[in-house]
């Protein structure tokens, strides 16, 4: 029996236009924590989904515990001893915690589900990991961190051999991260294999035994943590010239366009004050869950706010709707392309024109032809790769979908363009194009407010960097002084 717990070699997988896995490989031993690193879009989550049994590889071999891993069936993946902890776990809100742990495999006695054993066993597993949750309470309303603990306990309940943690620490506070890392070490000491996926290199160095780095769907390197340093890992991860990634066009900074003062919304963010000037790109940096998306949603009018003022070109906006924000000249490219940015079954033409229908009516009738004209015009400007303007957007690649969302909002000719994670999950090539577009738009006098968790992007594009932590604006750093350490310190509140 080979010594390795898991061996993946020569893995290939294509989704429509995107080659998600391009010759990936990964090896994990029992009692080892492997850090799986790579930029987003590098193929990490596709690999995870393969192991979760949600789809099968086009090519390549996967051996688990010496036997070939039976792919493509979630139940058999679980039976073969693989458990996944997702960054946003999804439990069964109406069921109790004990049931969530034992769903589909409830302990039985005398032919019927044995509730008391289920509760006591769950309590034991919780205690084992130092978690004080009541197994009888409903899962609805549980914090993300506690949900993850339930998922981990679910893994323990099936005696999982290999536990994959897919960016588990993203939305956790420092204390919750410590608890998570301690639990991971416990799993390793129990002889299980752990794959830890994260962008926080400090956690990786603190926790993992070895690292495997992926880029553009392939495994570029793997090594023991002791033999490598931060910079080497980054070079493997990024592996391309940084500068051409962020074509910064010099823009003449004009007067204040957006002026936010003392903005607070209970439980989301407090006392946010900043300005964005014409022609300026301001980045809003910080960890996921630090409240950045909530701020821009409020500026755009999706959510309300308790105190403070929002003024655009001198006109104040209060309890306004997105429609009023758009009328005032604000545009928001939302965080989730699929759920918030696009109407997936609809055509490129309809998606692009939806925000400017008011202007398109000629005579009585709003003709699809006028929508096609606008969409074709913008598709050209953004070099969109598409067959016909009437194709549904769900057939486009991630990068092209983002271009449609961008053209949808650029078509409104906004004075303030807000973009939330503009280049998340799109191929490297399109990323550079999006950056070029943003800086050209700024050069034309538009004020740009960019929420981004991609530090190279923040440092490469922003004229000013505002850092948020746990709902507060903690630091404002001009471009010249913006460095990795300073932003990280402000964002994580701890030495990088």
């Amino acid at each position, binding site marked *: 029996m080979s010594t390795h717990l898991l061996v993946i070699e020569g893995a290939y997988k294509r989704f429509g236009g995107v080659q998600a896995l391009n010759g990936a490989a990964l090896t994990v031993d029992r009692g080892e924590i492997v850090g799986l690193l790579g930029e987003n879009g590098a193929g*990490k989550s596709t690999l995870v989904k393969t192991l979760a049994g949600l789809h099968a590889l086009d090519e390549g071999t996967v051996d688990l515990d010496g036997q070939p891993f039976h792919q493509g069936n979630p139940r058999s993946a679980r039976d073969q001893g693989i458990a996944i902890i997702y*960054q946003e776990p999804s439990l069964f809100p109406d069921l109790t915690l004990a049931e969530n742990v034992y769903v589909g495999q409830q302990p039985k006695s005398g032919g019927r589900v044995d509730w008391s054993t289920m509760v006591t066993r769950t309590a034991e597993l919780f205690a084992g990991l130092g978690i004080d949750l009541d197994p009888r309470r409903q899962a609805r309303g549980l914090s993300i961190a506690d949900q993850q603990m339930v998922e981990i306990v679910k893994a323990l309940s099936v005696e999982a051999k290999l536990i994959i943690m897919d*960016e588990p620490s993203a939305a956790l506070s420092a204390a919750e991260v410590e608890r998570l890392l301690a639990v991971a070490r416990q799993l390793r000491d129990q002889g299980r294999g752990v794959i830890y996926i994260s962008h*926080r290199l400090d956690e990786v160095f603190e926790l993992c035994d070895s690292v495997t780095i992926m880029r553009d769907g392939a495994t570029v390197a793997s090594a023991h943590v002791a033999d490598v340093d931060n910079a080497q890992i980054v070079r493997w991860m990024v592996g391309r010239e940084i500068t051409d990634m962020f074509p910064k066009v010099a823009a003449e900074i004009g007067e204040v366009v957006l002026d936010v003062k003392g903005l607070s919304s209970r439980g989301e963010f407090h006392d946010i004050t900043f300005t964005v000037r014409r022609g300026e790109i301001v980045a809003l940096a910080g960890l996921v869950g630090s409240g950045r998306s909530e701020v821009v949603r409020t500026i755009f009018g999706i959510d309300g706010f308790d105190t403070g003022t929002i003024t655009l070109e001198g006109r104040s906006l209060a309890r306004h709707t997105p429609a009023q924000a758009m009328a005032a000249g604000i545009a928001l490219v939302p965080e989730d392309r699929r759920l918030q940015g696009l109407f997936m*079954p609809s055509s490129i033409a309809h998606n692009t024109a939806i925000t400017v*229908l*008011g202007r398109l009516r000629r005579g009585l009738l709003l003709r699809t032809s006028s929508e096609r004209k606008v969409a074709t015009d913008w598709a050209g400007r953004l070099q969109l790769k598409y067959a016909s303007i009437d194709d549904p957007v769900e057939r486009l690649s991630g990068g092209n979908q983002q271009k449609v969302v961008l053209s949808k909002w650029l078509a409104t000719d906004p004075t303030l363009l807000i973009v939330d994670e503009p280049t998340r999950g799109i191929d490297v090539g399109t990323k550079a194009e999006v950056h070029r577009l943003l800086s050209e738009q700024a050069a034309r006098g538009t004020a740009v407010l960019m929420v981004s968790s991609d530090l190279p992007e923040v440092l490469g594009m922003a004229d000013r960097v505002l850092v948020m932590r746990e709902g507060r604006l903690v630091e404002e750093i001009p471009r010249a002084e913006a460095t990795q350490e300073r932003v990280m310190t402000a964002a994580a509140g701890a030495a990088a």
Partner: protein
Amino acid sequence: MRSGGFRLGWDKGIILLLVLLIVFGGMSDNLFLSGDNINFIIGDVSEVMLIAFAMALLIIVKEIDLSVASNLTLSSAVIGITWHGTNSMWLAVIAGLLTGSTCGLINGLLVTRLGLSSLAVTIGTLALYRGLCYVLLGDTPVADYPTEWTDLGYQPIPGTFLPWVVVPMVVAGLAFWYVLHGTRLGRWLFAIGQGDEAAVFSGIPLKRVKLSLFVLTGFMCGLAGLAYTIRFASSSPDGALGFELLVIAAVLFGGVAIAGGVGTIWGVVAAVLIWGFSRSYLQLAGWDANALVIVSGLLLLVSVAVPRVLSKIRDAAAHRTSRPSSRGGVTPPPGGEAEPLSPAVAGHDQGSHRG
């Protein structure tokens, strides 16, 4: 905005079905296409058609209204009561339309303000509005409407064989066609049906649009109540029983997807006419009334099953280009993992450039 794969074909297919039915029916039974019979059929389907227009829009935005039949009867009852009270038919008509719209408003507020499921709400209001009919009329139907109004019910428009009710039907049909397929509001309806959240993020006033659709449906029930009252020259509390399932069946048969986001007005018009003409044809051919009920059930099933089977076949075929099937399969990787701040690299570090 009529995307949505095969559905596109269904609304054309159904118009073809209508033409075939009329041609085939006409050839095999010369009474079928007589002016009188067409006059009857148009009158027979008028109330279903009027409400189906508004119901189609509701289903496109993923909502539904089961209270339409009770609303229709309540509006008719109010017309009766007001006619007795004020002796002016015009006041009665206005009162009826107001009643319908108010009932729609109540449904709309419960759904949009309280976030209730429209199915659950309208099961409740179906019973409530029907009960109010009995409160207003008790056991005495209103039947003493002025003859110049009730004559409209059966005398055709002079010089033609068409009943007067064809006027509101055509006007409403054109208006709804224009709104759904030719205006910004129409694009919004399809957008809401295809993605609630994306609609809000595109600046579409979701709650206000849905509320106005419920009020519009209520108004159309009031209008249908007026047509019903004139057609039967009376208002009684037990009118239009079981009517709501008929309207929903017609709308779905017309190509409007219950999952929302897809549908056409001409598809619905064709579906209602097919229902009217096939009923009349089978009846003239001596079929038993029960057989008609079976036929309408089968037609509804076909209207939903055929597109589904074809899209499954299309998906299976498309699978060779490894596009995952939409049912239960895995959608392509979501917009990338939520990525925390990556301290990976300083902006100016010249990483070694490879490949």
